[in-house]
């Protein structure tokens, strides 16, 4: 018989190996599904790998996809550190996309446009995140529920905009007018979609790490998340910390929307985000809320997403498998986290 026993200490290598174990477990578990779908497991994963990381173009595609998830992953990681349960990165991303698209459609010099787009997107995301944070601070409303529900509100508001007053008059589809060409983010490698926003996302991760680890705000966020009572006794204004965290988290998620508008789609449509906000939760958990870990975690999910489409085309396995792998990786990670606190012990019966 086996039992769980509380660990007295966790070896350092174990903490590093944990996400890898979780990912490995997810891939093994999903191989069963691939087999059921009638494809060879090795072949399917092979196609996934080569399509996501096989050549330089594939790598740039994976990076382009990773960028929004790095930002939403950072947004979630920051929020969860303070135990502000922001499940609303998706809505904040959409708000950021809409705001930056509005700004980008106004004719002005390109650099200024890009700067203002980023500012507007960050502000819009922050404003959205402020809602659940304020409800929690003022009225003790559960932030999980309010931030989650707000996603639908924003999604349908966006739909109403692009099907109604904001619909592009030159197109038959429900999409917004495009931003000015001069506001399009510069492409870094000719012939790919690798844009400036990807670099910005990669730079954001160490910046957020620095903020959490090396600033007094980061200190207050960490202490508030771990023990709000000790924080209050220690003179920290817990409510203000929660609001600051929400603004920061929302701004990061909003920037993810800016990147999608400025660097990938150049306009807003209903499917501008295939759930990047929700994937941000998976990314943050895989990274164990460490901002530096967010980058590899987002790259993994991005590789799975790009790879899954190619695999679907080549082997006929539905591309939904990408979502299943994401979900399984999250579950595996949650289980694996249990083993940082417990170990399995065999006992005589």
């Amino acid at each position: 018989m086996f039992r769980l026993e509380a660990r007295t200490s966790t070896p350092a290598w174990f903490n590093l190996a944990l996400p890898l174990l979780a990912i490995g477990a997810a891939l093994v578990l999903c191989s069963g599904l691939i087999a059921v779908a009638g494809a060879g497991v090795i072949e399917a994963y092979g196609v996934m790998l080569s399509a996501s990381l096989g050549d330089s173009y594939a790598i740039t595609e994976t990076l382009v996809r990773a960028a929004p998830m790095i930002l939403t992953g950072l947004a979630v990681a920051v929020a969860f550190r303070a135990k502000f349960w922001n499940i609303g990165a998706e809505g904040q991303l959409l708000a950021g996309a809409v705001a930056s698209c509005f700004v980008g459609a106004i004719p002005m010099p390109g650099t200024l446009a890009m700067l203002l787009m980023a500012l507007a997107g960050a502000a819009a995301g922050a404003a959205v995140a402020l809602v659940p944070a304020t409800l929690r601070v003022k009225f003790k409303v559960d932030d999980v529920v309010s931030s989650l529900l707000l996603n639908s509100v924003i999604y349908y508001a966006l739909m109403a905009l692009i099907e109604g007053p904001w619909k592009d008059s030159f197109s038959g589809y429900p999409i917004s007018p495009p931003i000015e060409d001069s506001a399009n983010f510069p492409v870094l490698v000719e012939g790919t979609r690798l844009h400036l926003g990807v670099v910005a996302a990669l730079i954001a991760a160490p910046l957020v790490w620095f903020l959490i680890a090396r600033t007094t705000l980061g200190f207050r966020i960490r202490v508030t998340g771990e023990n709000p009572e000790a924080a209050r006794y220690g003179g920290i204004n817990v409510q203000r910390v929660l609001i600051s965290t929400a603004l920061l988290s929302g701004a990061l998620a909003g920037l993810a929307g800016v990147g999608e508008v400025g660097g990938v789609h150049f306009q807003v449509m209903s499917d501008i985000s295939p759930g990047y906000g929700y994937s941000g939760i998976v990314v943050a958990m895989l990274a164990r809320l460490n901002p530096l870990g967010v980058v590899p975690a987002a790259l993994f999910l991005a590789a799975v997403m790009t790879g899954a489409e190619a695999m679907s085309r080549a082997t006929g396995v539905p591309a939904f498998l990408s979502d299943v792998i994401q979900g399984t990786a999250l579950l595996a990670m949650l289980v694996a986290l249990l083993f940082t606190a417990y170990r399995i012990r065999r006992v005589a019966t």
Partner: protein
Amino acid sequence: MSASLIEMRGITKSFGAVKANEAVDLSVAPGEILGLLGENGAGKTTLMNVLFGAYAPDAGQILVEGRPVGIHSSADALAAGIGMVHQHFHLAPRLTVLENLLIGIPGKSGRIDRAGGLARLKEIGRQHGLSLDPALPVSALSVGEQQRLEIIKALFRGAKLLILDEPTAVLAPSEVDGLFAALRSMAGQGLGIIFISHKLNEVRALTHRCVVLRHGKVAGRVDDPANTTSSEMARLMCGHEIVPPTKVASTPGGSVLLLDRISTSGHAGTPLREVSLFVRSGEILGIAGVSGNGQRALADVISGMLPPKTGTMTIAGKAVAQFSPRSVQALGLGRIPEDRMTTGLVTNLPLADSMVLPRIGTEAFSRKGLLNPSAIRAFAETQIKAYDIRCPGPMVRAGALSGGNLQKALLARELAFDPKVLIVSQPTRGLDIGAARFIHEKFLAMRAKGCGIVVIGEDLEELLMLSDRIAVMYEGRIAGTLAGAEATVARLGLMMTGAEGRA
């Protein structure tokens, strides 16, 4: 001696490099109350957790009524007739007393056997004088009542051996008597009891025999605790004599803390009603009283956590304009909270973080919003040395420290900034006598340096030993104040019941 109820043989348990228990032998006979003594970190709780199945020992054997048994979980322990009351209770606050008793007990054909449970509860109440209203939710019980429920829970599950880990640390002195009566009654009916406490007078009054642990090993046994002096036991525990600190006379200066007709509302517990008091520099003011008579509100007001409804407070001559932990601290107030684990420290973060927490925004530890990690580390390292805080280093998780060391860390973080006034609640709760002595010495040293100290406590002996004056709280008021010389346990006890007014 009769055959033992429980016997532990050669128990060894290590946590990494720390040997928490090493070749420990211990036995309890039916009807016997065994005292388990030792300094903070000596391994008492670990040993009992091994017995209760929470930890697997690295070596050693457990025998129940002479038969070796494997105890791998608390369920195994309960099945073997071993019950444990932990220091932190394991109760479901929203459920009632009866429901808490019935958790995990298989009922009749899948249904909960309420009637049977009620009957057993009544019976246990009659046998040992342990009664509780079965319909009350646990959240409505006082700490003492919750402890009673934990004891009843163990008896309910048929415990033949009851382990109590520092049960008196959370009780008011009056509640201790009730607990002891119940424990004696249980022992009288053949139950074995293991009793852990740092208060040697309690151990001498209650137990039949003692085992003393030091650094995980059995350092000695006491066969006749009633006729063994406290200092002899202390020597066994620490390996050397513990001398009480000498309190030199001091002439108090001007008042450094002044409360003028402070009243509060909107606070859990008894509110303050027109409380006025003062503390002078170089003086220790003790606040005595049965817990729940407004001490919590008083501590919260002084430490800036609770703005009063009416009244004023002055620290070192300056009126407190805005009540917040930061503003009172800026005026020179040092604070040590009652609950180290929940209010004082952040157990999951490095010790250094907890040590700088209240002053993180000051020049000492940060500049323009940027932390100064080397200053933080250096501060923690210096204090760890100065206060002899036993830990692997400043980056260790605060929660890994023992109670005495946590208290030293909290003391260090305040005293390093030379407060003009210090407010402390229950400063030595759960500490061994060596650690308690250390804390007392620090208070007296601060007093000699001219600090004014308010000590809120329930341990009258401690208050009498430390205080220059003692104020007694009753129903949110100061019932009276005695000069240290005229205060006695009897007199304070009377005032605490509201019987005697100002002396």
